[in-house]
């Protein structure tokens, strides 16, 4: 008879998730919260899709739905140098599809997100996987305040920019990088061990068709209903603006790759920077695929992913 091995403490995988919690962030959070054998040290919230107070409420609701005790810390209310340009037109006024969820009145954990990021990385040097699902403002502010933390994460996996192809808020730029390009510049140049999951990966490998969405909802758990129903506004946006039937899930595929790295099937270490201005350039991720700059690679850019494994993981996350 085979011996069932218990998970040893030293194999524990520690996560910190930074999020501007709206509809696809919430799915990503749920996937991480319901994944076995990881410890989520903290969820930190940043302004982005919705104002930081709303994002914090959305994260707190999701943690409660998952039945987990993970502290949610509120962070910065605006990008480093620019005013916040939120995205209610994508995710709904409450960021969660405007389906009437009770998204107010909960109290976040004490401690500012920026301080929590610094403290968590210092407490577990070399152990923490950081996942960023929103603008990189909190992480950049932590790096400004304490540059030494760049050496501390096990890995930083970012839903940010595009590895290749067009943007989603401008022809060139993806929202998270576009909304706070200076923060992205700081993080990209920080020396942290970075992995980038661009918007293109979600369009290529994390599109949920209307039929697949219905099949997921038919699993008929509170998680399954939540995951599909809060995409109401996103689905409308995808159909009318980005010309997609169904919806794509950038943050969930990013978390999936953080949880199970093999879901990324092709990735390359490349030099990546950000364009800060110009008529069209704001927030464009500059990815040197051909090495023409001669600069050292600083980011592992995910180029392809395993759609079937991603969908399996998503379905498992919503089962009882």
């Amino acid at each position: 008879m085979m011996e069932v091995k218990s998970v040893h403490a030293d194999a524990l995988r520690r996560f910190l998730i930074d999020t501007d919690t709206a509809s696809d962030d919430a799915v990503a959070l749920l996937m991480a919260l319901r994944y076995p054998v990881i410890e989520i040290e903290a969820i930190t919230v940043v302004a982005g899709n919705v104002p930081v107070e709303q994002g914090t409420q959305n994260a707190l609701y999701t943690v409660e739905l998952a039945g987990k005790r993970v502290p949610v810390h509120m962070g910065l209310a605006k990008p480093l140098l620019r005013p916040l340009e939120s995205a209610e037109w994508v995710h709904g006024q409450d960021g969660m599809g405007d389906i009437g969820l009770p998204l107010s009145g909960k109290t976040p954990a004490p401690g500012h997100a920026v301080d929590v990021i610094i403290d968590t990385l210092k407490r577990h040097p070399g152990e923490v996987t950081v996942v960023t699902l929103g603008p990189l403002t909190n992480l950049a502010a932590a790096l400004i305040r304490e540059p030494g933390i760049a050496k501390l994460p096990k890995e930083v996996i970012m839903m940010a920019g595009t590895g290749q192809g067009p943007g989603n808020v401008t022809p060139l730029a993806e929202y998270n990088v576009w909304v706070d390009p200076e923060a992205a510049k700081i993080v990209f140049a920080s020396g942290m061990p970075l992995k980038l999951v661009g918007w293109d990966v979600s369009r290529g490998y994390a599109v949920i068709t209307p039929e697949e969405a219905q099949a997921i909802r038919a699993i008929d758990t509170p998680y399954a209903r939540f995951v599909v129903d809060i995409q109401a506004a996103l689905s409308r946006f995808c159909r009318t603006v980005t010309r997609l039937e169904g919806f794509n899930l950038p943050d969930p595929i990013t978390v999936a790759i953080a949880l199970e790295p093999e879901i990324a099937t092709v990735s390359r270490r490349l030099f990546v920077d950000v364009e800060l201005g110009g008529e069209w350039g704001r927030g464009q991720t500059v990815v040197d695929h051909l090495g023409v700059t001669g600069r050292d690679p600083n980011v592992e850019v995910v180029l392809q992913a395993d759609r079937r494994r991603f969908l399996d993981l998503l379905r498992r996350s919503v089962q009882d």
Partner: protein
Amino acid sequence: MTMNKIIIDTDVGSDVDDAMALSLAMRSPEIQIVGITTVYGDVTIRSRVAKKLLHLGGCTSVPVYPGIRDPLLRNREIFWAGHESMLLQDEEELNIEDKHGVDFIIETIMNHPGEITLVTIGPLTNIAAAIIREPKIVQNVKEIILMGGVCRLGSNGADLPVTEHNVRSDPESASLVFRSGAPIVMVGLDVTLKVKISAEVQKKLKTSGDPLNMALADALGRWLDFRQRDWTAMHDPVAVSLLIDRSLVTTRKMNVWVEYDHRHPTGQTVAVPADDGNVEVCLDVDSPRFLSLFTQRLLDR
């Protein structure tokens, strides 16, 4: 006499004017230095230099907090003259605080709402980082007296450079600070290039017998050698002098923003008069009166 509680944020050690400004503050009963924070380049060396000056001036209890080393986006070169540590001896015991300069700025302002004046005489990285982390300091700081920028709207405008060191060394931070809405007095090159001292002051400082003055004389000599000039401008001391006598300068209310791009150096302060502007821009200074105040405070002891 109103007592001004101030934090001085400084890149002391390169240009001699930071040391002169710290000394003027130490020698002025109108001013209480709550703490000094350092910025830009090797902040440990700069903090030790600040502490050394405090020791020489008999202000050993004023704490010094190292701040941020690199410009905000880390995309700007750092000017390092090479003589920054000349005032220090190798084994010297100089007690620098462990607390980070940015945390000190935030805590001090938030614990004393409306009471603390920030005197910034270096690039604005620490101040920008403090505003990012705690935006409420903008409403709770009494005033920011900011040595930096140049608007070229005074009588000497045509003779002034287009950019100024503290702003162009970290234009992103300067931009954030000017646009924050904080009450700012901009002490730019428009006034500071009107107040020059020469080797004559160096002689007076050297022969005064006061240990702080003698150190200032050495530092001034090194700086004049470095610049290969027989004069240097007292940029930073003008900022401090406003806390002693505001009538030394004439100002006008303006909106100020920073025009910059990715190239280095870049960072021009554009100032436009506006009744609701948050920046009092200094346009003129009574330099004879400033210089006599400055030398009296240092020499008549």
